[in-house]
């Protein structure tokens, strides 16, 4: 026990000796959290809309004013030909254009139907999809309104119609930050945990200090625990800082129990640190360890459900996410912080994480040798 303490003390001495380390560990995550949370917003605003109004009628004016009123769209220009509008998209001045054909108004009144054309630049698929959806919603709205108004004047009876409204549970204002911040926090803690622990042991190999350590009576488990414990503590401190920032800056609702978050984080970090340790057992230089950790992290992060919902992945990819510790922690964070899930709700997550922690660390310890 005492030996572990000595190693931990030495590690902390070394970590805080480096002038870069302190800001790197504590300041960078806060900056990243603040920047990322503001930037990673999936809502698409300010879509540049070009309008081709070949009708110039009351109906077309009403439709255009509906687009003007929307905060999602910016009307950047008007023209009379779709060819001109297409040029605008080509040049990047507009993201989409709406073409209102001649006799739009007349068609609506006389035949009770009219057609519109929406052309969207789909290079950015996400933006295109959303722009299309927003525009359709506005057109639907316009359609419903015009029917009601005209039906009144014509027959006096309102048409039967279903209108669907939404209620967003657990995040009533559909605030992306509320949704993103817990997830980004997971990333930051993971980055610190995996990189620092992985680099650290390899560094001893690279510099050769491990040679001196290996001839001491330090036992394997003492060395490994002594090495990982400091980063486990640092990562938990970092999680705390992140949660405070989330609470103060982003107003994250702390619906569930913080204890639950911390107990899960404690186990989760064992997995992450164990992975770092495992990487460091079969690499010789910090550079090698960096590349392998980075490779793993990229996959973990992109498949964590943080940026793209796991539900929308193909089935094989969904299967892979079952082995992604980051995905579990992101889910737990969101469930507990936003929804107030209790232990019973996330007991499966706990079981999976415990198993992973055990497997990864056993593998790492077996793979680490003092003698070769």
């Amino acid at each position, binding site marked *: 026990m005492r030996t572990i303490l000595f190693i931990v003390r030495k590690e902390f001495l070394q970590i805080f000796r480096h002038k870069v380390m302190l800001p790197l560990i504590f300041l960078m995550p806060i900056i990243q959290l603040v920047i990322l949370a503001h930037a990673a917003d999936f809502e698409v605003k300010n879509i540049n809309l070009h309008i081709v109004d070949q009708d110039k009628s009351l109906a077309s004016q009403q439709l255009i004013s509906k687009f003007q009123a929307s905060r999602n769209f910016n009307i950047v220009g008007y023209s009379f030909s779709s060819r001109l509008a297409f040029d605008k998209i080509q040049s990047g001045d507009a993201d989409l254009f709406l073409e209102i054909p001649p006799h739009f108004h007349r068609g609506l009144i006389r035949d009770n139907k009219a057609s519109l054309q929406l052309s969207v630049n789909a290079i950015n698929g996400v933006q295109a999809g959303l722009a299309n959806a927003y525009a359709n919603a506005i057109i639907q709205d316009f359609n419903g309104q015009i029917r009601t108004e005209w039906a009144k004047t014509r027959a006096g009876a309102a048409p039967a119609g279903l209108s669907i409204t939404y209620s967003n549970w657990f995040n009533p204002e559909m605030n992306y930050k509320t949704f993103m911040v817990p997830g980004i926090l997971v990333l930051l803690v993971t980055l610190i945990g995996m990189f620092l622990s992985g680099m650290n042991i390899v560094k001893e190999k690279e510099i050769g200090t491990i040679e001196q350590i290996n001839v*001491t009576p330090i036992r394997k488990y003492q060395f490994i625990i002594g090495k990982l414990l400091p980063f486990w503590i640092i990562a938990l401190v970092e999680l705390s800082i992140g949660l405070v920032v989330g609470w103060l800056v982003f107003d994250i609702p702390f619906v569930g129990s913080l204890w639950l978050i911390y107990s899960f984080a404690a186990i989760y970090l064992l997995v992450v640190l164990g992975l770092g340790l495992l990487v460091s057992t079969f690499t010789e230089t910090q550079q090698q360890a960096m590349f392998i950790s980075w490779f793993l992290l990229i996959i973990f992060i992109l498949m964590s459900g943080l940026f793209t919902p796991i539900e929308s992945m193909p089935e094989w990819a969904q299967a892979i996410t079952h082995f992604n510790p980051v995905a579990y922690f992101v889910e737990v964070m969101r469930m507990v912080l936003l929804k107030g899930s209790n232990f019973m709700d996330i007991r499966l997550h706990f079981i999976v994480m415990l198993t992973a922690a055990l497997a990864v660390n056993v593998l790492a310890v077996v793979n680490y040798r003092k003698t070769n």
Partner: protein
Amino acid sequence: MNDTTMPTTQAIQVESLSKRYGKNAQALSQVSFEVGRGELFGLIGPDGAGKTTLIRILATLLLADEGQARVNGWEVRRDYRKIRSHIGYMPGRFSLYQDLSVEENLHFFATIFGTTIKENYELIHDIYVQLEPFRKRKAGKLSGGMKQKLALCCALIHKPVVLLLDEPTTGVDPVSRQEFWEMLKRLKEKDITILVSTPYMDEASLCDRVALIQKGNILSIDEPGGIVSAFDKPLLAVRTNDMYRLIQDLREFESAHSAFPFGEYVHLALRNSIWPEAIHAYLAGKEHTGIEIKPAQATIEDAFMELMTQE
């Protein structure tokens, strides 16, 4: 086989030890030797001779393919844990924490051996006083000689019975080298067995006994004087203005046994005693100028070269 617990007179026993890296690199082949208690034993050999491999096997960092090795009576494979708490090991490469200070390094190594600096201070006192002015300095910022002294302190802090030093003086200035060897002599007086490897032949004479090692084989084990006196050929030191051609020409000389560069001279060993004038005439015939020939005292390097060519 209960002899591991019995106190043996030898501090280090090595019996037909072999180690191979990959398919073709035979680092050690059938090496056997013994080091007595309190002895200062030198492993002398060029780079790649197998010195580091041998020391790492004794330090329990490497497993041998064949053979047996005991340190203080403990078998390296089975009793590695006992060995680790009773030996001091200094790797060839500086292996202390460069970002920790002199004091912090020493303190750390003392604590993990379950001791304190105070407890064994008398052992390192002579060496540590020289480091004392720099005790707050980071180890990485020390000079080469100071680094070696610190490494030696850290290897001694738990009062080991056997000290394994892998090329401790490589890359150290001549003055520090001399100081270092004086320290080793003082440690020897404190009954610490020291096994030291070095590529410098001149350091061999400072050891009690040396083993000349080359390509994984021990060529000879003896006291430095014994190894030198085993060299029985007449020896001359020769120089001319064209040293490179001189070596070529001397090797073709019919009475020559061997010719090796030795500082400013070429050491020429002869098959039989002949008059130096005969050599002078031979060299003059080869158009050498500034010819100088004088008798030379054989050194351990000559003996080593001789043993190497016999292989």
